[in-house]
């Protein structure tokens, strides 16, 4: 992906900055420009998530595309953040330690390097809490 595409979501990726709708109280990560429930009646405001969550479901990726191949096998989970919204992220732990309901917390980590001289992408991963 192009540099601007990573860059413009830097704050979201690094610090779990999403948003919430003040009209209905829902939280969004990844952030949304419009509340899917309230649409134009919604009022979207920025919100930084605590980063505490629970594993809802998971897998261990054994075969990945080139940029991720070096990391295989790695665990991926859908994590329910304590604010109630769900996101997809890597969990750094031994794959067989994973279980549904496992408490996790956010950490700042390298996501991928695009080859030897390309962009290094950072973002949020999770570790057992």
């Amino acid at each position, binding site marked *: *992906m192009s540099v601007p*595409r990573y860059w413009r*979501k830097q704050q979201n990726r690094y610090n779990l900055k999403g948003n919430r709708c003040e009209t209905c109280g829902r939280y969004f990560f*990844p952030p949304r420009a419009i509340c899917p429930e309230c649409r134009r009646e919604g009022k979207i405001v920025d919100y930084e998530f605590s980063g505490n969550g629970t594993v*809802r*479901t*998971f*897998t*261990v*990726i*054994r*075969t*990945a*595309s*080139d940029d*991720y*191949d070096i*990391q295989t096998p*790695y665990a*991926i*989970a*859908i994590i329910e953040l304590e604010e109630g919204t*769900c*996101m*997809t*992220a*890597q969990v750094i732990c031994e*794959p067989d330690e994973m279980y*549904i309901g496992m408490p996790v917390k956010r950490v700042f980590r390298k*996501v*991928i390097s695009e080859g030897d001289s390309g962009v290094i*992408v950072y*973002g949020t991963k999770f570790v057992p809490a």
Partner: protein
Amino acid sequence: MREVAVVGVGLTQFGERWDTSFRNLFVEAGAKALEDAGMSGDQIDEMFIGNMSGGRFVLQEHIGALIADHAGLTKNHIPATRVEAACASGGLAFRQAYATVASGMQDIVIAGGVEKMTDVGGSETTDALAGAADREWEGLAGATFPGLYAMIATDYMNRYGLTREQLAMVSVKNHRNGVHNPIAQYRKEITVEDVMRSTLVADPLRLLDCSPVTDGAAAVILCPMEMAREFTDTPVKVLASSQASDTISLHDRRDFSTLDATVAAGRRAFKQASLTPKDIGMVEVHDCFTIAELCAIEDLGFCVKGEAGKLTEDGQTAIGGSIPVNTSGGLKSCGHPVGATGIKQVCEIVSQLRGEAVGRQVDAEIGMTHNVGGTGATVVCNILGV
């Protein structure tokens, strides 16, 4: 709305088609469909082509015009449109063609689908397919497309007690059906042990849980029911064609093991046709992964949630069972050229309803198709009958 019939079907051989190009794959399927309908290309009014990723797989966009040109249809300058909804692109093409004929806008319309996936390497294919889900918030986190369905399987197995062996039985059944389908990519029976011994792709899914990378094309010709007998003695009526959408990301779904878009598209189709799941004689569902077939059977209403593994184990989804599923071999054994699959499903039901499905024939008068884009963000259902 006018009643609409399918009067011609055409399929290429599915598989690793090193011998032929993207454009010629479709030309072959289209020509077979025209021949099947006993029709001249000059009679075609419009064309819709389902294609997921010509841009990634063969570096080609502007698919509608390319196909019309090489099919010899630019002579009459007919409208030719490429439609895309990832793996549901073919289903979308069928629904667009159906709406175009039903509305009275055009009389004779081709709905086709084509994908040429083997001209790039495996890693490129994996990356292109990840574009069926949310690239920024699923793909960039490292979730592959099989990885997303694996997370559905983890959730499902935890909640409903599905066994790993029951999951394997979906593949075993589909391969048994595919043996009898002359265009299938893998005409070879496999065992539960073969599935259990195959390479892990994304736990708990193994290689033989996954549909393969496939080149192939499919085409069908639609016209108003009142014109159908000009072309064939065995027209197949389109009883319903429905479509539904859902969140692009799996993590935003209400329930990871239920595809709400399947539920919605299924209900709409049954309502349009004034039918219930009990009236369906066979169904082609989107088994991109074994777990997807089980979710589809339940979400369409053929059994209650959590029971599809048992239904499969009891042989009820096999030919001769109460609801034969994927008589073509499904995506698993027949192959999954992503843009073509939705049309191939219609071709299989038409063959069945005409009594031409040699070796895998089901005695039924109504069949259904179910085509999924991504992890359930788009679903197209069709019901066909004679």
